[in-house]
């Protein structure tokens, strides 16, 4: 059996096997829509809060209006006690509250300190941070407003007053993901993981369905079979990867910084390594429904070990080492640095070499595995 016909036979069994075709073509398309779907609005806005106004003065009302005007907040009601506010939070009608103390305006004008109290539902960190950030800026503005007027009244010039209130400017700017959006945060990593997982599943089901049965795969040597299979999967996944890294990143507004040639160069060992790993992985199974299950269970851990959701510094090092054997982990780290954070090629090249090294190891494992499986029949 020639190499070419072996490849064609592999391709045919991939495309005609419904379980594999659904996973590969259906899964890749489906997940490119489904995973980013919840995050399309990027940032949480208009979080409902309630206000407990103990002051009822022009200033406290102004504060409430400012809170309502903040893009992060939406004042949905005014209550009288903190207990009521907690009930609103517990019933989901509000996610945070602000307490304006009695004599708020009077104390401020008399230059006595006042305390504004904020509470937010910390079950949802994104909501909580939106509520607190929104209220903090509103509160600081209110204080500044009073100080500004007070200092003006005492005869300082407006320019001088502004300077006195802000002697130093803290210019804090997000880098790499300027909108602080959730899609650019999650999508580039998760899509690479989807490629990795679907490829492994596809190769796994294909192998598991063939070992121990008669077919074209027996007419080839282990080396030929591995090379043909890796070539076929690599070719299919070149298209998928182009679709994900090229189109989806663009479509979801992910910031892309690397040069095209470098991205292509980086992804070559990723695709090859994952394809070889897929063939090696398939030798572990003879039941077609198992590869999917194993990969499903390890996909969340792989995502977390990649270190863009929970920082690597905080993950116990044995888990980080264990993650190094997964092609997706070094790929996600390398691609994020190269493509999203604009790192230079030399600073990510160790990921690249690691992928080649993994490819070599998995190739040897695949050879041992396939030889065993073909002999066993």
């Amino acid at each position, binding site marked *: 059996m020639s190499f070419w016909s072996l490849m064609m036979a592999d391709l045919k069994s991939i495309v005609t096997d419904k379980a594999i075709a659904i996973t590969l073509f259906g899964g890749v398309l489906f997940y490119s829509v489904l995973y980013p779907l919840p995050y399309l609005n990027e940032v949480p806005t208009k979080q409902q809060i309630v206000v407990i106004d103990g002051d009822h003065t022009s200033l406290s009302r102004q504060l409430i209006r400012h809170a309502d005007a903040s893009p992060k907040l939406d004042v949905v009601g005014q209550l009288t006690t903190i207990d009521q506010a907690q009930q609103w939070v517990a019933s989901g009608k509000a996610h945070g509250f602000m307490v304006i103390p009695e004599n708020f305006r009077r104390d401020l004008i008399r230059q006595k300190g006042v305390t504004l109290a904020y509470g937010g539902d910390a*079950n949802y960190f994104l909501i909580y941070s939106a509520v607190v950030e929104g209220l903090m800026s509103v509160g600081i503005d209110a204080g500044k407003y009073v100080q500004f007027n007070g200092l003006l009244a005492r005869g300082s010039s407006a320019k001088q007053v502004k300077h006195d209130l802000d002697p130093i*400017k*803290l210019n804090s700017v997000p880098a790499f993901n300027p909108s602080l959006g959730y899609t650019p*945060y999650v999508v580039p990593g998760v899509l690479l993981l989807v490629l990795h997982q679907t490829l492994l599943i596809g190769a796994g089901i294909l192998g598991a369905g063939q070992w121990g049965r008669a077919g074209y795969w027996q007419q080839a040597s282990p080396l030929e079979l591995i090379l043909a299979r890796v070539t076929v999967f690599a070719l299919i996944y070149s298209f998928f990867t182009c679709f994900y890294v090229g189109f989806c990143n663009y479509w979801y507004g992910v910031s892309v910084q690397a040069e095209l040639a470098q991205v292509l160069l980086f992804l070559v060992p990723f695709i090859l390594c994952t394809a070889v790993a897929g063939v090696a992985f398939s030798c572990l199974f003879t039941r077609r429904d198992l590869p999917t299950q194993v990969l499903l269970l390890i996909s969340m851990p792989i995502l977390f070990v990649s270190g863009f959701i929970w920082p690597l510094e905080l993950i116990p090092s044995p888990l980080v080492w264990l993650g190094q054997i997964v092609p997706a982990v070094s790929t996600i780290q390398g691609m994020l640095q190269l493509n999203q954070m604009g790192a230079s090629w030399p600073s990510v090249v160790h990921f690249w070499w690691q992928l080649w090294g993994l490819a070599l190891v998995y190739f040897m494992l695949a050879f041992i595995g396939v030889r065993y499986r073909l002999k066993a029949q």
Partner: protein
Amino acid sequence: MKQLIKRELHALWHDPWQLALVSYIPLVGIFGLWWLFSAGLPRQLPVAIVDQDQSQISRMLVRQLTASSVITPIHYQDINSAKASMEKAETYAMVVLPFQLNRDLLTGHQPSIDIRYNSQYLLVGKLLSSQIQLSLADGLKSKALIKQLAAGVPMAQAEVNLNLVKTQISALYNANSNYVVFLLPPVLIALGQLLAMLVFANSLNRELRLNTLQEWFALGTRRVLWAKILVYTPLIVLQGRLILTLLYQYLGLPLAGEFGQLLLAQIVMLLAVWLLVLTIFFLLQDSARVVSFCTALFAPAFPFMGITFPTQDMPQLAQWWRLLMPSSHYIDTHVGVVSYGQSFATFTQQVVSYWAYLLLIPVIVFLARRVKRMTNSITVQPSGSEAS
């Protein structure tokens, strides 16, 4: 019925993978994920410092940053190397203390301290941004205090002047913003749901694989199904109970309500999972495809729970998809019980939200009858073959 349950237990015992799914895999999974997040609070994250001023005040500000538990300052000589370290994710933020910072402050100019934080790693970046600003603002306040004192303001008044509006911030239900409290429960619930789905799908698929579908129908479709439910529901609830024990008893995370409600809610969630798996099983009738399809459906359950990204800010389509996932119904109850100590009345309302799953029952009956007819008509040939 006893015999049918025995049949299920026998099947479970003779399927090593299935046995693994109900025994050590959940243990390893739960322990592994907990270990991953066990740090709980982000601490000592590396931050690049470029001190171009090298003055007393710039060093004081760096000491302020060092004092923060979240920040570990790492000095860089120039901005380019600091930038490179950020691009390599060796540092997650960068603070530039500009040349003549001290001089500008003394001569009444307004210097500006540049902070850049890695928002590609959103969680870390946002945290560092707020912590760096807090630390620096605090350091600068002590300078401003001296200035006020020098201008003749009495100490008590000077302190008030600096903090005219103080703020008191309460993180409700998670007082120190611990990530174990925030992230671990939904992650483990997502894992539990995946395990439940796999276990049930495997149990059904086994009938296909060993070609015992006919035996099943002969024994009574419903009775065998009940036996499966009676065997696997307690086993999975046991895993759920293990998760709860780890979180709220061993780790001692705050728990306002009672376990009873949570376990009941888990049973309801599992019944919903069973209905979904049954529908897919009777629809596809091929073990690999059943698993693939269930996987496609259940794998993205975690982002749709609405814990990491709030439900109300999802697009409408995502909110509908969310309702398809039993875990998103359950998580509402979970948060309600754990944080708000919700009443039983609220729980009943939440259970009612599962009503749409009941619509699956007639579909399952219809599909099952079709499968039964097909199985009976091709008695000799193996049904649900593994062939592609």
